């Protein structure tokens, strides 16, 4: 009691002092002063303890609910069993709130025990707070376009990478997984492709720290297994994530200035909650298999078409002559009755994943903590014992001082990944190997080379690729309420990303006939790369509230420095293959790359938000950015945006009882930029390549330099209508946007006569992305035992090249057309097979009797999705919860004709190629077979680059299903959940290739996965 009295007296005096010292804050202070005086006057009245239990409708305790006395800052949180105790005066009013429940107010009225039943908030609109990066905003009051996905949804998907969990769930966000090999990367595009050249990656921010999504993989090492693309985001364990927010429009992204053009993805990790120390354990096992196999020829079909092709080429007579057997071993030397399903053999395995997680969390009102650890091991569908292991530790510590003025948050993520894979992806081998190709192993168990007539695919298993990645993301945030309405805050962040990888090429993986020995052949290539970055962001937050309005002002600045290093070495010649991992045993050691680069970034940013009567909201954001990627005089750029919202449902004409419960009209306009071009491009330089000639180290001119390039600009405009019906049980957000990117900062392709393929510079071209997005949420049924909610989103993007002066004479003349999307591809126009000659025919646009590029590649196809989205349902009945989520996309993509269009070549192909022309008069869709020996025009090659190689690749995919059963409570505070989850279970599509989502014939398609798991909490 005494302390309380003293501290309040202190406060009065302190505020009186401020009154004199800082006139600017007078008004706010006097208001507070009055309030405080009022409290001081009441301070002597007796307070008594009030206790009770907080439960939900189903009678389950609600831990962590916040109980506060109205008009004071006093408050407590309920315990794990829902019980609470608070000191209050008889006439006080308690405000009870908890995430996901409707806030209740209860008058104490001289009662000492108050049990409270909280009603679940159907819509959650009131309580949803969105992370907007430097500030947070209530869903209802936001002026910008922010979409988010929460832990609840993420946890139900058995995935490895946060991006995988987002697929399909967020409007305007198009994510494609590049391969089904564990640890591989993702392509993400937010609201289309803004820039003619350059990456479309958004800015990723993890707990306030920019996190580079650029892989440090070296193509020398991992080019053939995952394109050198290893997603750094793998380091973030999806189950440690509380929410992911995607910022899309100018209002939300302009505060990120030069890095906001492609959107911003904010990842927030979980924090500890007030209450009893809680342990959670989660164990799961996943089985994964390739979801779709291609329909390839069997031995009989294959050999028939091979022979037919050789005959058609006019070499039929040579088939009988054994002297030429070496030209076609598949037809003559190999067993013509043998059949192997190479897809089953090479990519038909089952990938297992075992996952274990343990977390401890809890805390008092002042300090909360969370520590979680996870371990995971995943194997592949390939033969051999390749596997991916990941261990993560995540911790979060929150503290606030007793007077709540000082707050601190410390969060760290540490991840260790180890991925051992064969050097090459077996997928293209599985599709291409002849069906009668020989045994993999000979009788003695060694690799079979069948008299040197083939390359044994399993040799790749001897060639190991291993990568170890260590990631540390540490962030400390500190804030101090200097005055009640002025907060000083600093974010300090540090992150390191270290990658160590190697690839071995031992002589034992090669045909012994070639005479390769460890001394003359064996080699290892290693890549040691590291990226270290730190950031400091001091900020000032000032809030002022009047009766009808509220003003928030944020000022801040950023200092960031990032250093990347890459060191690639190749050791060759070893005494024997068992020493191949030891570089000191190598006879020669070449340094292929030894580079470092530094990136410095500095900014000054601000936000002013004005809210009038909760009806009209104005949000101004701006940023002044400086980046070391630009030359002197070009380093700084200014960006800003204005956002407006009108909550018309708060106008008097809408009564509380109308069907429309929420209505908001909002719009935003502003500019962002991009400096995504790599470091040091403005300097005229020579670089060291690591080779030498006659003892002199080689210095190579880096490229044509341009000291004058500057920021590229992206002007975003958006208008949106947000509606809620029936107490917000139904919510529909509809937005329209138009983003125009100009001053395009690109590598302008140059004619080779300049000496280099491109030059970095600003180009006066404009790309426009317009689109329409709808997000829909509804609570269909809600009662004591049964709840059914639905979410739906759809995006209809449209990309257009608006302006491009001098396109016809430029190097882009044959890639783009003004008024068409950037994603077009120009193709030959296939006219089918000539019924007399039996070869493909094409439209000769320029009528010169020759089919040639570029003149005759005039057929245009757009490969960007026409629309895409997702539909999710959550059904819960008593202890059961069923989630299922469909993803859909309408698009065109290259089909199998892109890879092989002429039957009869060596190597297997789709059975579709069997439907071929055989004699004059035939009207089959596929041209006559050819063994590739005839000296005629490669019509198959033209067909592969024609519109015939494009087909509809639209799909509806049951991306995830999750069934969760919560065991009836055995003991209070002891929760057991059993769940079954499926990923990528079903796909409805007309597409013939392996995977309509990722139409490639050389990358492992996404797997179909089934997970069984158990979760314990106590």
């Amino acid at each position, binding site marked *: 009691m005494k302390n309380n009295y003293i501290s309040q007296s202190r406060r009065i005096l302190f505020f009186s002092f401020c009154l004199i010292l800082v006139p600017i804050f007078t008004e706010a202070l006097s208001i507070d002063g009055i309030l405080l005086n009022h409290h001081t006057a009441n301070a002597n009245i007796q307070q008594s303890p009030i206790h009770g239990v907080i439960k939900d409708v189903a009678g389950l305790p609600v831990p962590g609910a916040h109980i506060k006395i109205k008009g004071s800052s006093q408050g407590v949180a309920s315990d794990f069993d829902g019980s609470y105790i608070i000191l209050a005066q008889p006439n006080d009013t308690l405000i009870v709130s908890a995430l996901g429940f409707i806030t209740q107010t209860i008058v104490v009225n001289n009662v000492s025990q108050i049990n409270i039943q909280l009603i679940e908030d159907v819509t959650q609109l009131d309580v949803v707070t969105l992370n907007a990066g430097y500030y947070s905003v209530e869903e209802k009051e936001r002026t910008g376009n922010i979409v988010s996905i929460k832990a609840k949804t993420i946890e139900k998907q058995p995935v490895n990478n946060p991006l995988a969990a987002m697929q399909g769930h967020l409007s305007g966000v198009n994510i494609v997984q590049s391969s089904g090999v564990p640890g591989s990367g993702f392509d993400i595009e937010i609201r289309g492709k803004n820039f003619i050249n350059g990456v479309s990656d958004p800015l990723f921010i993890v707990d306030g720290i920019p996190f580079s999504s650029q892989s440090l993989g070296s193509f020398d090492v991992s080019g053939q297994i995952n394109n050198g693309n290893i997603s750094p985001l793998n380091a973030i364990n999806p189950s440690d994530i509380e929410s992911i927010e995607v910022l899309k429009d100018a209002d939300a992204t302009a505060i990120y200035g030069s890095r906001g053009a492609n959107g911003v993805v904010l990842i927030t990790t979980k924090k500890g909650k007030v209450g009893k120390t809680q342990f959670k354990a989660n164990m799961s096992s996943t089985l994964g298999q390739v979801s779709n196999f291609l329909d390839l020829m069997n031995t009989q079909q294959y050999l028939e078409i091979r022979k037919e092709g050789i005959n058609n080429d006019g070499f039929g007579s040579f088939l009988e002559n054994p002297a030429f057997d070496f030209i076609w071993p598949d037809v003559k030397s190999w067993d013509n009755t043998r059949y192997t399903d190479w897809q089953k053999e090479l990519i038909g395995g089952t990938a297992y994943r075992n996952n274990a997680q343990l977390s401890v969390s809890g805390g008092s009102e002042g300090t909360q903590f969370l520590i979680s650890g996870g371990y995971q091991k995943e194997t592949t569908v390939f033969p051999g014992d390749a596997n991916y292991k990941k261990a993560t530790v995540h911790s979060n510590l929150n503290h606030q001082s007793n007077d709540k003025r000082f707050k601190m948050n410390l969060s760290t993520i540490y991840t260790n990944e180890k991925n051992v894979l064969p050097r090459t992806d077996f997928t293209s081998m599985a599709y291409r190997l002849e069906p009668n190709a020989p045994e993999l192993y000979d009788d003695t168990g060694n690799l079979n080379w069948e008299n040197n007539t083939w390359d044994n695919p399993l040799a790749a298993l001897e060639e190991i690729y291993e990568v170890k990645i260590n990631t540390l993301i540490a962030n400390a945030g500190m804030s101090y309420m200097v005055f009640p309405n002025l907060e000083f805050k600093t974010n300090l962040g540090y992150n390191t990303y270290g990658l160590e990888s190697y690839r071995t090429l031992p002589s034992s993986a090669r045909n012994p006939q070639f005479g390769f020995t460890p001394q003359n052949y064996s080699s290892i290539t290693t890549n040691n790369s590291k990226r270290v970055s730190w950031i400091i962001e001091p900020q000032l937050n000032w809030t002022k509230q009047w009766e009808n309005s509220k003003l928030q002002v944020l000022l801040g600045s950023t200092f960031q420095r990032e250093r990347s290093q890459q060191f690639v070495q190749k050791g060759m010649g070893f005494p024997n293959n068992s020493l191949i991992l030891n570089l000191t045993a190598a006879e020669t050691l070449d340094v292929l790359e030894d580079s470092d680069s530094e990136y410095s970034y500095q900014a000054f940013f601000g936000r002013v938000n004005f809210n009038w009567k909760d009806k009209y909201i104005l949000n101004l954001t701006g940023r002044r950015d*400086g980046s070391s990627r630009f030359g002197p005089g070009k380093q700084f750029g200014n960006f800003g945006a204005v956002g407006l919202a009108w909550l018309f449902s708060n106008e008097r004409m809408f009564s509380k009882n109308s069907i429309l419960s929420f209505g908001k009209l909002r719009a935003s306009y502003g500019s962002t930029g991009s400096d995504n071009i790599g470091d040091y491009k403005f300097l005229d330089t020579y670089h060291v390549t690591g080779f030498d000639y006659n003892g002199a180290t080689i210095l190579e001119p880096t490229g044509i330099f341009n000291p004058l390039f500057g920021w590229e600009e992206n002007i975003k405009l958006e208008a949106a209508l947000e509606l809620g019906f029936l107490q917000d049980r139904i919510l529909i957000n509809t937005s329209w946007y138009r983003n125009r990117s100009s001053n395009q900062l690109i590598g302008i392709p140059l004619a080779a*006569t300049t000496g280099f393929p491109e030059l970095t510079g600003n180009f006066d071209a404009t790309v426009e992305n317009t689109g329409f997005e709808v997000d829909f949420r509804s609570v269909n049924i809600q009662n004591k035992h049964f709840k059914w909610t639905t979410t739906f989103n759809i995006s209809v993007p449209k990309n257009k090249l608006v302006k491009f002066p001098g396109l016809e004479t430029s190097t882009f003349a044959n890639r783009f057309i003004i008024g068409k999307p950037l994603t077009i591809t120009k193709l030959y126009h296939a006219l089918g097979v000539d019924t007399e000659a039996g070869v493909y025919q094409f439209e000769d646009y320029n009528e010169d009797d020759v089919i040639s590029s570029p003149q005759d590649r005039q057929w245009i196809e757009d490969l960007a999705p026409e629309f895409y989205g997702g539909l999710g349902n959550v059904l819960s009945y008593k202890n059961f919860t069923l989630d299922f989520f469909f993803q859909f996309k309408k698009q065109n993509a290259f089909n199998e004709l892109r890879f092989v269009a002429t039957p009869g070549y060596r190597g297997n192909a789709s059975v579709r190629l069997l439907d071929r022309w055989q004699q004059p008069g035939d009207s089959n869709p596929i041209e006559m077979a050819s063994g590739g020996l005839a000296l005629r025009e490669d019509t198959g090659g033209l067909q592969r680059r024609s519109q015939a190689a494009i087909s509809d690749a639209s799909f509806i995919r049951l991306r995830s299903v999750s069934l969760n059963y919560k065991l009836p409570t055995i003991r209070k505070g002891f929760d057991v959940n059993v769940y079954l989850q499926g990923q990528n279970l079903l796909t409805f599509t007309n597409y013939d290739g392996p995977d309509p989502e990722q139409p490639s014939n050389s990358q492992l398609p996404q797997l179909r996965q089934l997970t069984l798991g158990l979760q314990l909490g106590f």
Partner: protein
Amino acid sequence: MKSINYYYYIKTSRQLTRGSLLKLLTILLMGLASCTDFVEVDPPKNILISETVFNDPATVESALANIYFKIREQGMVSGRNGLTTLMGIYSDDLDYFGFDASFLELYQHNVAGSNNTIQGWWNTAYNIIYATNDIISGVDNSSTLTIEEGEQFKGQALFVRAYVHSLLVSLFGDIPYITTTDYLVNGTASRQSIDVVYKHIISDLNNALMLLENTDDTGERVLPNQLVAKALLARVYLYKENWEMAEDLSSQLIDTYNLEADVNDVFLKESRETLWQLKPGESPRNTQEANELIIQFIPGQKYALTNTLIAAFESGDLRLDHWTGSISNTDGTVTLAFAHKYKYTLTETESLEYSVIFRLAEQYLIRAEARTQLGNISGAQLDLNAIRNRAGLANTTAKTKTDLLNAILKERRVELFAEQGHRWFDLKRTGTAGSVLSAVKPNWQATNVLLPIPETELEANPKLLPQNPGY
């Protein structure tokens, strides 16, 4: 009340610190935000600002090393995907057994404008030319290099510029002759006629002759010097049919160097008749040529000597025994001949052979041809016999101009086979490509004497239009 006063005092002093802290922070925020030093970073350790490259002779040597490295490893001159193998299969020297689509196009004479290999030759050539131009202007602008140093560097760069252009003009006909690093000029350069290109080549070579020394500082002839520039100039005059100059220049070389007596020594790195050779890297330690051309197993062969080439050797020719090899498959049904001038593949651990680019034997044959054209029959016979005798053959029986020219052409074929595309260039310049190749290349057309300008280049720079005829 006393306690209140006490706290009042504490509060005041705290507030003072808070106030000044706030001021300090504001100053810090604003102050730091406006400083541009933060966004200026030092260049990294693997990058050198171009200007500084030309302040030190050692770094200029490094810039030149880049040129020789690229010549050895990429593009037209390299042993791997260069003229030696690919113009060998384009002419009647070599048969191709591999599966590379762009190589097959060359072998089968159905080359498309999109051919990757030709695009690669073109790109590498102009990349090297850019490097030479940057060295020429860098040396000119450098204030720290001595005159002697500058002359050697510039002379080498001029020589390489002329050399690369000379190969381009032979393959593609009219081409842009690039003499600057300005991308605005180079990116819109027009094609110049063959005559103009040769004028530039001859002028560059004459300048190089004046700048370069006639000594070999390396001891291994791995850098071009004045004599190498003369060798190229002699070849250029031969192609230009300026017989007097060709004779004059080749004479200067023949007077300076000697042929190796033993055919087995011609391609060793110590060979006395080598004018310029490219030193291999640490790994490979021998030549790409050996690696590509020697057939170790059947199947597995890539290139084999054609039957017509083998038939062109006279009996008793030592070159047939020592410069070619043959191999059969396990059951003896297939036997193929291969070029065996270079004997040591990449897997050897000792460096015994370098890639020879210019050698004296060619100069003898140049002079023989020039002398024949000038009517000096006996002189021509002497030169031709020098080559024949070394190969264990008797003196030539050709006496008339026509016979001698034919004999020289045939001698060139067996002396210079599988070397830098000599056979193709000889067929082309003597106008015999059609009559010879139409017999072995069913797709032969008269327009095949020129390769197509890469398709993407015509798109990138429409001033290069029109495409060469036939493509």
